[in-house]
């Protein structure tokens, strides 16, 4: 039965075209994610695998713990480059040569811009240029003091005292000094992960939307429901087919994307804390890059599974494939419209909608906090727990809804 349910989906031209479309779109996303360049000693921009090798080599030279000494060295190196004749020159080529020298410390320099910024939410690209080596010791303390200042001023009304304490505690408890390594593969992978996961979700929505409604459209419902297993095992096999399609397509696409990007850009830095890169500097989840990757792909899978089940429920309830296809679109696009509403309670709700699981990369950076049973937690663990439970509950609901259908 199960194999025939899969055949119903993939024997259709649309089903096969959807798979092909995923391959194309993942390919395009990989192309953008792998768009990394290196400026050589002549100030010329290089692209391709050679450029990746060069960039990796120069950044690897600075791999290690970002202790005070290392920060001092980075500030010194940045100042040396900044004061070089090439950097001070007005000639573009010479400026490029100077830029090229700074590629090895570029990512750490970004961290300096974050740490020594004027405000918690500010980022000044040239802030690192104004630093002296004596200031190296403030690197980690700044991270906490900026947060505290922000919580006292700008964000005073955004969080309860308990939540503020929680955030400060999280910042305090992160293990320092951070271990830094070349991690371009991961950062690029993370940046485009919401795109890939949302593409997969929208196409999955199309693939699973007909599993429960096609029988009605093809008028084969009467034969199905009058057969021995039509109201029990056949429904289970439909649910099984839905889970299988979501699992196979999701993991196929995500692992293909991850594999291509990491093979091309390298998988170094997976044990680094997420805070060792500008994209995760403010993150209050004290996790490694590898753990972030696991959260992103697990969140994406749970999100896809939940939305697909919801789509299947709509399909079973309304007998309409069109309505079922619209479910993922609605769940992905409506929250982005509502995000413009400037309200703390609305944003608290929006942070718990299932689209957040498809963009866990971003959810990890949001300061969305919830108090569950007296304990303050971030949105990500709440999302993972709530939608896992809801997905588990949806399966019997779909079974019950479809199994009791009457064909009038």
């Amino acid at each position, binding site marked *: 039965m199960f194999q025939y349910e899969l055949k119903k989906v993939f024997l259709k031209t649309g089903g096969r075209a959807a798979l092909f479309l995923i391959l194309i779109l993942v390919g395009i996303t990989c192309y953008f994610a792998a768009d990394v360049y290196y400026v050589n000693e002549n100030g010329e921009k290089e692209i391709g695998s050679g450029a990746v090798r060069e960039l990796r080599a120069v950044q690897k030279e600075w791999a290690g713990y970002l202790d005070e000494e290392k920060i001092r060295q980075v500030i010194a190196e940045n100042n040396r480059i900044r004061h070089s004749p090439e950097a001070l020159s007005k000639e573009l080529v010479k400026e490029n040569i100077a830029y090229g020298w700074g590629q090895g410390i570029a990512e750490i320099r970004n961290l300096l811009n974050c740490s020594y910024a004027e405000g918690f939410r500010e980022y000044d690209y040239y802030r690192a240029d104004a630093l002296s080596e004596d200031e190296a010791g403030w690197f980690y303390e700044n991270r906490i003091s900026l947060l505290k200042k922000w919580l006292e001023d700008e964000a005073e009304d955004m969080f309860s005292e308990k939540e503020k304490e929680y955030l400060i505690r999280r910042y305090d408890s992160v293990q320092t000094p951070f271990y830094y390594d070349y991690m371009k593969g991961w950062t690029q992978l993370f940046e485009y992960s919401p795109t890939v996961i949302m593409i997969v979700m929208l196409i999955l929505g199309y693939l699973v939307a007909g599993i429960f409604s096609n029988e009605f459209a093809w*008028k084969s419902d009467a034969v199905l429901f009058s057969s*021995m297993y039509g109201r029990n095992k056949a429904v289970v096999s439909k649910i099984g087919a839905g889970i299988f399609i979501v699992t196979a397509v999701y993991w196929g696409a995500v692992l293909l994307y991850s594999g291509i990007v990491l093979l091309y850009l390298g998988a170094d830095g997976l044990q680094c804390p997420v805070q060792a890169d500008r994209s995760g500097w403010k993150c209050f989840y004290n996790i490694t890059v590898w753990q972030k990757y696991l959260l992103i792909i697990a969140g994406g899978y749970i999100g896809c599974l939940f939305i697909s089940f919801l789509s299947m429920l709509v399909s079973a309830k309304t007998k309409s494939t069109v309505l079922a296809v619209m479910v993922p679109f609605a769940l992905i696009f409506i929250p982005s419209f509502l995000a413009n509403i400037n309200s703390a309670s609305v944003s608290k709700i929006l942070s718990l909608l299932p689209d957040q699981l498809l963009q866990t990369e971003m959810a990890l950076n949001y300061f969305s906090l919830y108090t569950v049973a007296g304990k303050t937690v971030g949105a990500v663990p709440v999302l993972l727990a709530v939608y896992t439970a809801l997905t588990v509950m949806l399966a019997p609901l779909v079974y019950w809804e479809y199994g009791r259908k009457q064909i009038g």
Partner: protein
Amino acid sequence: MELNVSHLTKEFKGAAAVDDVSYTLRAGVYGLLGVNGAGKTTLMRMLCTLIKPDKGCITWDGKDIFELDGQYRKLLGYLPQDFGYYPDFTVQDYLMYVGSIKGMRPATAKQRTARLIKQVGLEKEKKKKMKKLSGGMKRRVGIAQAVLNNPSILILDEPTAGLDPNERIRFRNLISELARDRLVLLSTHIVSDVEYIANEILLMKDGKICVAGTPEELLAPMRGQVWSMDVSKNKTGACRRAYKVANVKTTPEGINLRILSAQRPSENALPQEPALEDVFLHYFGEGAVEEDVSI
């Protein structure tokens, strides 16, 4: 082997589609005749557990079919009026799939599929996609899926709809072959479909079974009430207003009418052997014959 229907009622939007029907069906071929909207399909869908009755119950050998659930449906073969299929499945795939949802072991389903494909004359088309088949071929696949599990109860809703005369005869013969030792309920509004093969005929009107019996039993009261007479063209209208006219035939001499009447309609009227079409006309009226019955 007894399928018992007791005080069965089903309403849609306040109107009774099936109205307090009680009947017992045993092994044999039953023809369910009635005009469109008489409630045949609703009755059959309840017998197939596709819809639940509002009142009354259906039992199989004394047990409620909705409680028997899958155990009852295991014995069932159903060809719906609007037979749908999976357009991208081949004939063979489709039958194998139906075999799986009917709880057949794959080896048995494969064997039965091969035999039935041969029996319904679709050997050459077995690898063809369902959407590429003609209407008649699809109908043959429909009957093959209905009997795939060798059902004790075979319910066929308007099985000959859309078939040409040759296919209809072929289909009728096929049902006769398959009918042995089963309960076959065949609904149609084409009298000739059941005339030769039904052991018992149920006439359904306004949600009720108004008459039931063997063809002989139905025909018996009509004896002496069917007449043939020649009339001039200008008297046709008057005759049609005065009597139920089963047939109008133009002849070189004028018009020949087949009339249903308890009294001899005219001196030159000749008594005729009644046919089921006459019974149908008698119960459902001339409009029903013209609109719904192919005579």
